[in-house]
């Protein structure tokens, strides 16, 4: 089997034409990208130019401790979207799940694509185990950590797709048996942009790549290395059910009248108020719908350590550390306040008794008035 050469000279525009993408669709795609990146309209032409003139940059897609959910997210759009085509064109060089090469051929493809340091982009999916010298994930006899250090270490930039590669994700949930961590932690000092989410949204991946092509650098990020264009505002603030939240209209039980009427899922444990992501705007499966739109609360999947910090999924607040899950924060608080009240009630009784047994002597005093 012949492995596609990475040094083709045709531009992305040529490749898209070959794939049967019309000029009109291409422009639609570019305007969608401009909007996703929250760029002013006059950047549109710049985006178009950058994307069409790009010499297919090399992009390799590594998978470690993952469920291939991000790959699924990429591939399972209901109709083949243009971003899928763009990414497909970009990522031909190495992608374990979708490439036809296997074994040695696959290894060769990776070696070829990454031969020249600083010439390629890496997408990583899945966390990197570090316990027991990383034996819990090995590919071709090498540990994930080893591969990441080499491939990500020499890349132009690394894009982590999904919460696992960004922060360790589900494999890193307590008690984290494999010592899983994200790429930025595993290979310190490299250029990484995080696209967490379970899975990440393909639109954001494409937009990040387009930003890179247009400006030659990665978009601005927040404290957790996430691009602001996609993670800059809270789900709760863009949510279509927000009017019901502000009104005080809440779903009380699954399937109740309020649920059927599309009221706010706050009391069902929705973590929209704690989560930054553009799901309400970008949506999923070709902008068809998204979790809250489908009637389930947000689980906060794009936040670091979400499996530990956002649970219980169907309760608003986490469990009080050290107490059994049966205790809600309010119950704990009421017990504390009640115990104090009880304690001092007893103290009051004690004082009363003492004052009977041993009355306070009061001396009459004359107080000079001013």
């Amino acid at each position: 089997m012949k492995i596609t050469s990475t040094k083709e000279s045709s531009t992305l525009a040529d490749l898209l034409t070959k794939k049967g993408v019309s000029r009109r669709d291409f422009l639609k795609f570019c305007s969608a990208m401009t909007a996703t990146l929250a760029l002013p309209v006059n950047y549109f032409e710049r985006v178009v130019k950058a994307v069409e003139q790009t010499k297919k940059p090399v992009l390799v897609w590594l998978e470690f401790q993952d469920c291939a959910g991000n790959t699924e997210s990429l591939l399972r759009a209901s109709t083949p979207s243009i971003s899928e085509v763009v990414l497909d064109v970009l990522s031909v060089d190495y992608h374990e799940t979708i490439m036809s090469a296997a074994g040695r051929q696959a290894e060769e493809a990776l070696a070829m694509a990454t031969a020249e340091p600083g010439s390629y982009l890496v997408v990583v999916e899945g966390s990197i185990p570090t316990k027991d010298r990383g034996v819990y994930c090995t590919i071709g006899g090498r540990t994930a950590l080893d591969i990441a250090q080499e491939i990500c270490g020499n890349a132009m930039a690394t894009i982590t797709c999904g919460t696992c590669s960004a922060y360790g994700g589900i494999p890193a949930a307590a008690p984290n048996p494999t010592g899983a961590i994200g790429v930025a932690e595993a290979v310190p000092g490299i250029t990484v942009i995080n696209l967490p989410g379970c899975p990440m949204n393909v639109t954001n991946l494409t937009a990040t790549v387009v930003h890179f092509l247009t400006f030659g650098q990665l978009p601005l990020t927040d404290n957790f290395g996430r691009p602001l264009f996609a993670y800059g505002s809270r789900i709760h603030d863009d949510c279509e059910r927000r009017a019901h939240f502000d009104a005080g209209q809440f779903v009380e039980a699954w399937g109740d009248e309020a649920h059927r009427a599309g009221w706010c899922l706050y009391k069902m444990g929705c973590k929209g108020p704690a989560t930054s992501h553009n799901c309400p705007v970008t949506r999923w499966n070709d902008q068809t719908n998204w979790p809250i739109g489908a009637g389930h609360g947000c689980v906060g999947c794009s936040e670091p350590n979400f499996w530990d910090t956002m649970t219980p999924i169907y309760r608003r607040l986490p469990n009080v550390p050290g107490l059994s899950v049966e205790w809600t924060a309010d119950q704990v608080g009421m017990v504390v306040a009640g115990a104090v009240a009880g304690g001092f009630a007893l103290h009051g009784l004690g004082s009363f008794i003492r004052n009977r047994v041993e009355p306070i002597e009061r001396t009459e005093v004359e107080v000079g008035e001013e």
Partner: protein
Amino acid sequence: MSVQVAEEKSIEKTGRVYIWEIPVRLTHWTNVACIIILSFTGYYIGNPYISVSPREFYGTYFMGLMRFIHMATAYIFVGSLVVRTYWAFIGGNQWASWRALVPFFTPEGRGKLLNTILYYFFLRRHPPTTLGHNALAGFTYGFIVLLYFTQVLTGFALYGQSDPGGLWWNLTSWLFIFVSNQMVRLIHHLVMWLLIAFAVHHVYSAWLVDTEEANGLMSSIFSGWKFIVPESSESKAKQKVSHQQPDKPGEK
């Protein structure tokens, strides 16, 4: 401390002394009002027990209103804390000073702390005489002030999230690097209960000390004046030596 000597003289004459200046009393009652409002609205935000139907009289912006009241009151609360902090460091008298909140820094303070604890455990008939906060109360207020600032920090951190890049977001978003978002909420929620627990203890103790010591403690937070009962001011000199009440020498 010459100030204290002069004061003790005036106390002996009139039996009363002006302790709580206006800013102290004003911020105390502002805080009380704010905490009551913040607790009611905060509890509703945390657990919206009233679900509103569009036909009801409180309209279709009930949670919005609760949150608005919570945030607006929060600003007043912060204003009050700023005034009180200024008064503790710069403006206020010796009893309003921040030193009252850390009695354990001086040997005398530690002695009084211990004796007040003994008093609460019925092991001592009277608490040590004090003009300002008694040592244990001061220590408790120190803890309460920490809780106040915890509420302000966590509250504004939660508030700032609705406006990324805004003032509060810039000032507080570093918090989420150390504490997860949900944990910040839990802390904000639990501290409310700690403050409620404190309020229970606080009002009881104010009443207890007021009735047992007859020093006008309760009214002092309205008027600013406290009374020194000669009995206790006499024993004061002895107390300084022995930290004990003369009428109860045989205590355990």
